[in-house]
């Protein structure tokens, strides 16, 4: 025993001497029949501590630590189903294989929707409004398995085009020939009684649910179309109760296209047709030092799951023609990572390596440069003997960052890119407290032509790309390795604004207030996927602000200025200062809301572009 301890210490010393080369990647221990996990908030990416983790079908429970992590050892072999519970969040679920080496579960929880009261003796439609439209549940009287008349209903919407990481389990029709399912629209339905117990439908009873089709998918699904719907069964860890739902107009607002279907069990529920057009893509999972990692689990969405071979490669079936999200994990038990990135033996410690590549952020490449073949991948047995892929998609993995990072990236058309990166602890609202500049990050920017630049750190936490000109109207993608350990922690993309200029207004011009419609140009307006918001302000010099000011905020390229009167009237004659500002990226909606469009585990942020046109002075006549 003494010799063994000495040997362990020696291995640790050798590892420490590797100068940051994480060469122990494949030889570090990974305990059998063990599941480790990391639980985060889907909105902010923050690690969640104090989450109760239950093993379905047993009395085993644990709780996530301050880093949002947990570990369960000595599990029976086979599929392990886990439930996750934290106050204020919709129930989460995950699955993993208890096998020869430790497996990882990455679970993202979503903050739950607004509670609504319900007396189950009555028929009632309850709904939760979102930007996509109302998510509704339609109850028949006395259909719930309770005599309690003071129930609370919580509908938690989930848009899989943005939040697919919060969907429980694998969205796969498995069996002999696994087929991916393509998520369309989902929600979680929780009904709680006055004792806070979860209530469900009586056996044989049903309810009707309506889930909005996300705006991004509305061109694919028309009114009257049928979409396959499923309920997640936490007991089996599978999506079940496959029935057809129909795309119809919402019964709540009469306009929103919704997926309307019958539901027999309240849980996660949604629509996901089987993927008919599949491709097989080759990936390679690499650790620090570009070393291929064997035994890493790679999950694709929409797609299947695969484990890397001795070359660190795997072939994964994905949906063809849509951006796919790849997530790779590799876990070491009784190991920690030192400050130089080395894996060091340490009983009780663990390392969760994570890597994410979102094809949506591979702009200019669109994943097409990587090895892929039509149709599903061959069966696993034939994969293990296949030749090395010539050009696999690389997925770098490394431990997810400690703490929490927030990035703000500004694309200046015709100029540079600036990124401010901070590290801190998110509060309940998701804002960082005690934020400090984050040094040592590796940040790269790519454009839609495939040009890539690594940003330099100008000052602590401030990064800039020198000798790299941001071209107006071009799309850029930012990848951030916040802690500089080789794994991308967050990514996002945005268009640099086009050249915006007045079309029919000129400095010193004179115009009729009654007939004026201001118009402007944006050189990028016709680009596919381009979306900009324009802010226009008319303000009379020395004016009062009611009859002599007008505002516009929207995505149109014209505006008829009217006074802030009721009803609106032409602006009062006089000399006006007219301002035109343009925004793209993280800005959204009629109130210039700023939403996070850089996402990842342990980080969030915004990438945006802004352009202020020089104000002009004009004269308005009656």
């Amino acid at each position, binding site marked *: 025993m003494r010799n063994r301890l000495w040997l362990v210490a020696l291995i640790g010393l050798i590892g420490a001497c590797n100068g940051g080369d994480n060469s122990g990647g494949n030889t570090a221990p990974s305990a059998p029949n063990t599941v480790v996990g990391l639980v985060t908030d889907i909105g902010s990416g923050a690690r969640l501590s104090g989450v109760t983790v239950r093993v379905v079908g047993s009395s085993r429970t644990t709780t996530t630590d301050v880093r949002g992590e947990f570990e369960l050892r000595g599990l029976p072999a086979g599929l392990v189903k886990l439930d996750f519970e934290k106050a204020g969040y919709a129930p989460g679920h995950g699955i993993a294989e208890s096998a020869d080496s430790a497996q990882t579960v990455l679970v993202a929880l979503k903050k739950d929707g607004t509670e609504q009261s319900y007396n189950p003796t009555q028929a009632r439609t309850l709904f939760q409004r979102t930007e996509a439209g109302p998510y509704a549940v339609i109850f028949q009287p006395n259909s719930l398995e309770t005599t309690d008349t003071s129930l609370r209903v919580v509908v938690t919407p989930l848009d899989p085009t943005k939040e697919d990481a919060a969907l429980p389990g694998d969205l796969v029709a498995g069996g002999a020939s696994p*087929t991916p399912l393509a998520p369309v629209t989902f929600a979680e339905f929780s009904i709680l009684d006055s004792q806070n117990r979860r209530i469900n439908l009586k056996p044989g009873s049903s309810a009707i649910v309506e889930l909005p089709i996300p705006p991004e998918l509305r061109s694919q699904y028309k009114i009257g179309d049928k979409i396959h719907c499923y309920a997640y069964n936490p007991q089996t860890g599978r999506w079940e109760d*496959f029935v*057809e739902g129909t795309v119809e107009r919402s019964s709540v607002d009469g306009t929103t296209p919704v997926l309307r279907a019958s539901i027999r069990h309240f849980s996660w529920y949604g629509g996901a047709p089987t993927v*008919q057009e599949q491709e097989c893509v080759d990936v390679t999972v690499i650790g620090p030092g570009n070393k291929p990692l064997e035994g890493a689990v790679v999950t694709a969405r929409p797609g299947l799951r695969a484990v890397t071979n001795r070359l660190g490669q795997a072939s994964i079936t994905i949906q063809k023609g849509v951006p796919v999200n790849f997530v790779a994990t590799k876990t070491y038990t009784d190991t920690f990572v030192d400050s130089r990135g080395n894996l060091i033996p340490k009983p009780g410690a663990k390392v969760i390596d994570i890597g994410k590549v979102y094809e949506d952020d591979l702009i200019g490449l669109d994943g097409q440069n990587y090895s892929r073949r039509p149709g599903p991948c061959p069966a696993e047995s034939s994969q293990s003997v296949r030749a090395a892929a010539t050009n696999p998609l690389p997925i770098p993995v490394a431990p997810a960052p400690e703490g929490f990072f927030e990035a703000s990236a500004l694309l200046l058309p015709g100029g540079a890119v600036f990124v401010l990166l901070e590290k801190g602890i998110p509060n309940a609202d998701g804002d960082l407290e005690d934020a400090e500049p984050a040094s040592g990050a590796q940040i790269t920017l790519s454009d839609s032509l495939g040009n890539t630049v690594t940003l330099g750190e100008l000052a602590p936490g401030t990064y800039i790309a020198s000798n790299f000109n941001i071209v107006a109207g071009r799309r850029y993608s930012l990848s951030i390795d916040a802690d500089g350990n080789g794994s991308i922690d967050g990514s996002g993309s945005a268009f640099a604004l086009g050249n915006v200029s007045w079309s029919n207004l000129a400095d010193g011009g004179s115009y009729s207030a009654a007939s004026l419609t201001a118009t402007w140009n944006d050189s990028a307006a016709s680009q596919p996927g381009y979306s900009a918001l324009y802010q226009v302000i008319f303000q009379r010099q020395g004016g009062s602000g009611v009859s002599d000011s007008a505002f516009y905020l929207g995505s149109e390229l014209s505006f008829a200025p009217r006074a802030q009167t009721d009803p609106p009237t032409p602006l009062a004659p006089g000399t006006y200062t007219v301002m035109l500002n343009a925004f793209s990226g993280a800005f959204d909606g009629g109130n210039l809301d700023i939403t996070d469009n850089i996402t990842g585990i342990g980080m969030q942020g915004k990438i945006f572009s802004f352009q202020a046109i020089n104000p002009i002075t004009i004269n308005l006549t009656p």
Partner: protein
Amino acid sequence: MRKALLLGWVLLTACSGVPAVSPHYVLVSQAGSSTVAVVDPVQGKTLQHITVGGLPHRMVVSPEGDRVYVVLVGSQAVAEVDVLTLSVRRTFLTAPVPERRPDGTVIQAHLEQDAFSQTSCFACHNPGGARPFIVGERPVGIAFSSDFARLFVSHIRQGRLSEIDLDSGQVVRAVNLPPSGSANEAADVARVNARLVVALRPRQPSTEASAVRWLDEHTWQILAEAPTGSDPAFVLPLGEGALVSNFESNTLSLHAPGASPKSFTVTPGPLGMLAVGKGKILSLNYYSNAVSLVDLDSGQVQNFRLELANKVFVNPTHAALSPDGRRVYIVSSGTEGHLVVFDLERKQVTQAIPIDGLSFDAVVVRRQ
């Protein structure tokens, strides 16, 4: 040595869970993968996938046992599978290929690619082909004519009933059935002697009434109509009557012209049904992961969960009877698919064979 071999064979047969009955395969329609699986219950595995077309669902076997007809819900067609070669022999369209969309605009691709000469929409609307993948009138129910020379097919969209001549493979008659109240989808069709029984339902989900309509097989004249439970899914001919599974109201209703329907309550989600003896029916109850053994004479209903070694087999849809009548092959159609072998004497699951997720129907064919 011979004794040892014989003993080995006996042991092997005993352990396989399947007795020495006439050699047979089970064909399973696999909606998720556009295929029919050829399953060998002795080996306990799928031997072959036959690509048939979009969303294969219901299947019927010809009286000679040499053909299987597979309804392609997503490709507006029926595939004829040759049992000897285990391959698709022909496909038949169940409704004409449209020239125009519902809004009146011409479907240019149909004209340019001469879609009207195809015998299945799958020829063009297949993985990697034209979009969308799922097209057409959504044929679902299927039944043979009295002389077995024609097929009757019911369609969900438009509530259409069509008749296909098996010699020519052509649709020789098609009618949009008048709705019964708001019930305008022809969910299934069966033949009872010289009468057709059509289950009509409103667009789902719905709490509106559904109906069972009796038609003259030859003239399609309406003979009778009666209300049935919510969301009728399957019609099983039984003597002079027809048994209908009512998916949403958890009942089986026995219909006969001129008589009030008789109802049997089973566990939630009855879908497929199988006659397993005189007056005995096995109901496949989708939502309750169970089967119900119903004695139509006594009204007795016994329910059995589909589980083996603590594993539950979810969402049973349809089933087929083994040639010796002792076992039922049940399709468990969750996202993790299984063909579950249910022993009728022991009334329990004895074997589970992996198949594709989201499979639907099963038929037994002779092993050639």
